[in-house]
């Protein structure tokens, strides 16, 4: 096996693992990996806001009924 083959294999494996870790961290942070740069609504701040909003809307709906 030539040196270049070893380098290519190691680099490929490291790159794929690196991207997987990066994507995982982004997901944990609630940031999307889709490339649009927006949070995907999964971060704690978003979840909290959504939860509050849903409760509020539920109350409003009950009130209007």
């Amino acid at each position: 096996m030539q040196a270049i083959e070893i380098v290519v294999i190691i680099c490929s494996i490291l790159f794929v693992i690196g991207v997987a870790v990066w994507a995982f961290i982004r997901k944990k942070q609630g940031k999307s990996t889709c490339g649009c740069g927006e949070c995907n609504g999964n971060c704690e701040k978003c979840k909290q806001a959504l939860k509050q909003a849903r409760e509020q809307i539920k109350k409003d709906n009950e009130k209007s009924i």
Partner: protein
Amino acid sequence: MKSFDKNELMIIAKPKKFALVGNPNCGKTTLFNNLTGSTAHTGNWPGVTVDRREGEYKKCPETVTIVDLPGIYSLSPYTPEEVVSRNFILDEKPDCIINIIDATNLERNLYLTTQIMEIDVPVIIALNMIDEVKKSGDTIDAAVLEKKIGVPVVAISALKGEGTTELMDRAYEIAGQKRDGFTVLEQSKLSHLINDVAIALKGQDIENPLFHAVKLVESDELEVAAHKPLLGMIDNFKSTFQDDIFGVDFEALIADGRYKYISKNYSTALTRNSKTDKSKLTKSDKIDRVLTHRIWGIPMFLLILFAIFHLVFSENFLFIGAALGKDWVSLPGTAFEGVFGAGGINSPGAILQGLMEVLMTWITDGVASLLVNSPAWVTGLLCDGILGGLSAVLSFIPQILLLLMLFSILEDTGYMARVAFILDRILRRFGLSGRAFMPMIMGFGCSVPAMINTRTLADENERVATVRVIPFFSCGAKLPILTAISGGIVMSFGIGNADIITYSMYVVGIVTAILAVVLMKTTTMKGDAAPFIMELPNYRLPQFKSLMLLMWDKAKHFIQKAFTIILASTIIIWFVSHFSFDWKFLEDSQMNNSILAGFGKLIQPLFTPLGFGSQLNEWGWVFIVSAITGLIAKENVVATFGTLAACIGANVVGGADGIAETALMIQASGITIPALIAFIAFNMITIPCMAAVATAKAEMPNKKKFKWTLVFWICTSYIVGTIIYLVGSWWWTIFIVLAVMALVVAGIIIYNTKAKIFKFKNKKDKK
């Protein structure tokens, strides 16, 4: 005693926080971008921002955090994003509120101001769009307004960056200072009650007592729940009170009081141009007469949409190819052969794509020449696997950016808000409001922010239905699939125009979305559409700077994605397509025995009804694995074509771009045109990328609805793909399809009628 220098103090002190608050579409995000250098999405329609975002302003003596909040008309929230704004203002106590006012709509915008002023926090008013006021010949005296309101007022143009430095300097001056709330309801019939409640709240050490008192008197849901003991005081007052017009509707009485005060006191700062003939139609009105016409509005929208696709994708621009002769611009024998046209003139988008293709070919050839002495598999991985996959995707960047720019122009001019109104007439019949169309339109850019934007919809069923159909509006990531296969069809079969195919597929997506909504709203999600009230923005010329920033932002993210997720995917695809199950390395010609091929062949029969299953030859599995890799990121579909096509290595005209590589796959697999169209439809409608799935999960009210959403995407894409393949291959099957559809409709009608009768009987029995 230790003394602190300035830098140390800055570290110890919490950074000052300024909140941008204002009505929807008054320019908050534009000001936010201007102050912080951000590139947050802006649009000329209300409701673009649905969550708060933060940035830093560095031109004050210390760095200031700027918080951009969703637009609100009042501090009594009705939709999720309005809750975000109210909660921030009250709970997180900003050091200063910058209240942005659309100066062209002074009175209506000041309604919110009168509520903000009741909070004990420093407030400064940014009189935005002052340039538009001047243009119309009107004048607003900021000094007079400041004197009347009692808080600083600065005239600005957020779009042009005028007056923003003065605004921030004055905001910094007053930030953190103590300011007691003030209400304009002093002259109101309810002033005594408000004062009494405020004193009672102050006695309980409640912050912002005046604000809470007014809201409690208004019977605001949140306040009533929080201060129940004080309700007796209000009820007592109600029992002795009666207004001639509003009765005991205190909410309406307070709103009326605010508007009367604004009209009497603040509006005097505005001087209307005496020469303006109010009966005369404005420019916006004149344009609206054509673009929002009752009958021609929708055909006009479809025509504008087609013009955009023609400009971006056509290889026969303006259909003048035949008139000019075949080889007029084809430049045979040069590196630019076919870039400017072949048999017709290419559209600007197609020319840019051609130039990108030339660049990618040079890079691929350059890398290949450097690896002449390397082992064959290394060359294969780097050139065919990585560069083949990447170039297939990257060659579409110019077209994606151009398309997004044109959509953004439609949005910035205010046209898209009009389209929502035009479509409201149709969507309402099916239980959706035109408001739902705005997130759908955002879906053309990216499904993720579009799904988040559904928070502006007040009805839960409407929100769920909209989230489910957003992926049907092809996002930028799906564009390479559409363009590569449309181009591949033209290249392989020599028929049709790529732009017409691409445009038709977008229309198929929109029609499928509408039909799916109809189906949901007549079966599992019954209910009337919420009323659609949205302020129509004035037509505005898009700003060159903001368009360029948008393009730069999109390009940056696209390239980041290409060199992370897509690059990693191409490496994996290349490896699994070059190793057998017993871990033996395979030559390109042996790929049919690879792990990837084995996996593809296993599930290939499932796709036979869609035309890209068992009926294809030995290379048919490529279409299956491409669709599967697309679940990670949609660009992967074409990247997989690129990687695998480069390995198949058949002779095909063209360079290192997605179209040539797709054409190669078409030739190698023997797939038909209807099956290719079905393949596009399947990829457009099926489960979107992982990021969009995660967002859908977050936006759904519960896990059950999310699971049904996944089933819905799979079933819809399968059905639509099957119909397209069947009807495209055997035209007479249209009658079978129509018969089945008629049966489904009849079934729904019978079921709904029975349900109604059952409900009626139940009611009668109860009575």
